[in-house]
């Protein structure tokens, strides 16, 4: 697994290289956006860790250029924590967003999730299991502790969108378009209502979530541990 680190701070590059190599990743590092785009094309990394505040161009621009030729997972590492920065990067095509300073174990967990999603398509599990929750993708059935749940078609679509992108931070806009259709994007109230209903049916507590995590103002993330 090859990871490309694009960050203009040599200390961060060194820290990431050491930690990632210790976990068995092959690491390449560059310090500018231009080099980042070129390296993404030339070296074909499996994962890109990208800083937003680069000296030559904004990280969001790097994502756009990389997305022109590659679907490689991109995780943003940034000191910016404004909701608008996160949404802009995610909507430009980033897979995830980690705010600096971060705990290495968290970054590694996000990296693993991103690599797993991008990995060679495993034969799709017909049934997903998260503790007592079972989702039968073929029959579109949801059961909790052996009991079948009544979920509306919209709730099911929302659930499907979440579980098919495990660990990924899905923006409001992305979810609305995926579940309601292309014409949607700003109707966050719908989304909230359905997320709330879904959480209730799945028995997930938003203030101590085991399945769906809220990123206020940005979106939702499926964190269910498959078992």
């Amino acid at each position, binding site marked *: 697994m090859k990871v490309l680190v694009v960050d203009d701070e040599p200390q961060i590059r060194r820290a990431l290289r050491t930690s990632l190599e210790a976990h068995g990743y092959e690491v390449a590092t560059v310090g500018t956006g231009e080099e980042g785009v070129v390296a993404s094309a030339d070296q074909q990394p499996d994962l890109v860790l990208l800083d937003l505040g680069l000296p030559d161009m904004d990280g969001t621009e790097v994502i756009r250029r990389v997305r022109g030729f590659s679907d490689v997972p991109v995780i943003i590492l940034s000191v910016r924590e404004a*909701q608008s920065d996160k949404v802009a990067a995610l909507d430009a095509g980033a897979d995830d967003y980690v705010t600096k300073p971060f705990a290495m174990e968290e970054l590694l967990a996000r990296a693993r999730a991103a690599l797993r999603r991008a990995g060679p398509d495993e034969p799709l599990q017909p049934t997903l299991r998260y503790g007592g929750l079972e989702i039968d993708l073929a029959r579109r059935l949801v059961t909790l502790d052996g009991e079948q749940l009544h979920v509306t078609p919209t709730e099911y679509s929302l659930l499907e969108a979440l579980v098919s992108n495990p660990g990924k931070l899905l923006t409001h806009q992305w979810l609305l378009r995926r579940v309601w259709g292309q014409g949607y994007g700003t109707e966050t109230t719908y989304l909230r209502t359905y997320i709330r209903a879904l959480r209730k049916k799945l028995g997930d507590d938003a203030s101590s979530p085991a399945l769906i995590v*809220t*990123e206020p*103002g940005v979106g939702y993330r499926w964190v269910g541990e498959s078992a």
Partner: protein
Amino acid sequence: MVVEGPPGRLARLTLRAIGIGFLATLAGTVLALLTSQLQGAGVAIFILSVTIAAVSGGLWAGVVAALLASIALPIVESPQRVFGFDQLRDLIAAVVFLAIAVVVGLVVGNAADERDRASRREREARLLAFLSAKLLSGDVPDRVLDEFVQVLLEPLGLASCQVSVTLDGQEIEAKAVRPGVPRGGPTEVIPVVVSNIPLGTLIAERPEGRRPFTRDERLLLEAATRQAAVALDRARLDARARLAQLDAETNQLRAAMFSSVTHDLRTPLASIKAGVTSLLDASAIHDAVQQRELLTTILEETDRLNRLVGNILDLAKIRAGALIPKRVPTAVDEVAEAVVARMRPLLADFAVELQLAPDLPEVPADPVQLDQVLTNLLENAARHSPSGGTIRIHVGETRDAVRVRVSDEGPGIKPEEREKVFEAFYRGRESPESAGSGLGLAIARAIVTAHGGRIRIEETTGGGTAMVVDIPLEETVL
């Protein structure tokens, strides 16, 4: 103020008085002729005409009417309709009539003049009162002056009015011009002076070809200008006092900030550096447990440093006026859930109760800033709660806001301290040194205020503290 000025004044007044006197007498004559068969009606009619002339035209119109009537009366009274006195009796009657008519004219006319003067004075008083209210409203001086010159235009019949003054080296100018009026008429220049210090001048200009200012008008202008001068002086003193106060506050804040930041930044850095150098020290032998302890300390201190830096940056943003919420429809209950979820590790020692009212409306708010407010309130509650205590978060709705209430079972905050805790770098007197940076609540208040909301402290039944935040349902203009 329709007092006309000399020299046109006299001529016009005389003309008007004669006109009214003449018209009144004419009407009287016609009426008297029509009723000439009624003996003695003529006298009554002419007295009436004199009275009417005096009421409507003032003193001189009354006198003119009296003179004319004393000529007309004998004509009307004589059977031949010619002027003359057949008998001495008639002459005496005529003279008596003239005397009575003149007295009536004088009395009534004087009263009418007095009434005019009174109403003029009342108008002037009202204008001056209005001006002084405007001027002393404490508004920005240039805005007040703009209104001041505008207000003077109409009642004084000006084509333009201009004030230019220098306040503390700053030049302020206000000018009002009546549109469509040719300028270049009589001009009055009045100095703006306060306690013998000249501040500038007021220039009032009439339209081209108009009469000059009367003495009354000049006095009025001077009175108005004096008021403006006093108001300007007050504004100047206020501004100075404010600056001095701001200066003192800033200095005090800066001193507090330096000592606080120095301490708060250096302390975690010291722990981190000590831990790291110890781990790097080749001569020291740490077992796995010691290593882990050192590393845990480093991690905790890093987090503390990170929170502090975040707070200082926020405070800098607030001070620079850059704390502008990026408002989107935000579900406060959802933010509260997310904050509690994220802070679970920090709140592990406490029982956390989260109560959300059903069907809460969304509010126009910046979700990240709101997250920050709730985070700071929870951190604060955790800091002051006894281990094992309950921290309650309730999100509900009032008539015009979504209300968040975070309550703890700590020692509470004394009423006299309840406002102070929202000041930057303020720490409760009994707080241990290791408590927060003293910034969390100041930042929370700044954010809530920027949202047009309110944050305050209430008592809980158990003697703890409840922080109550109202975020308005409607976006309010600050």
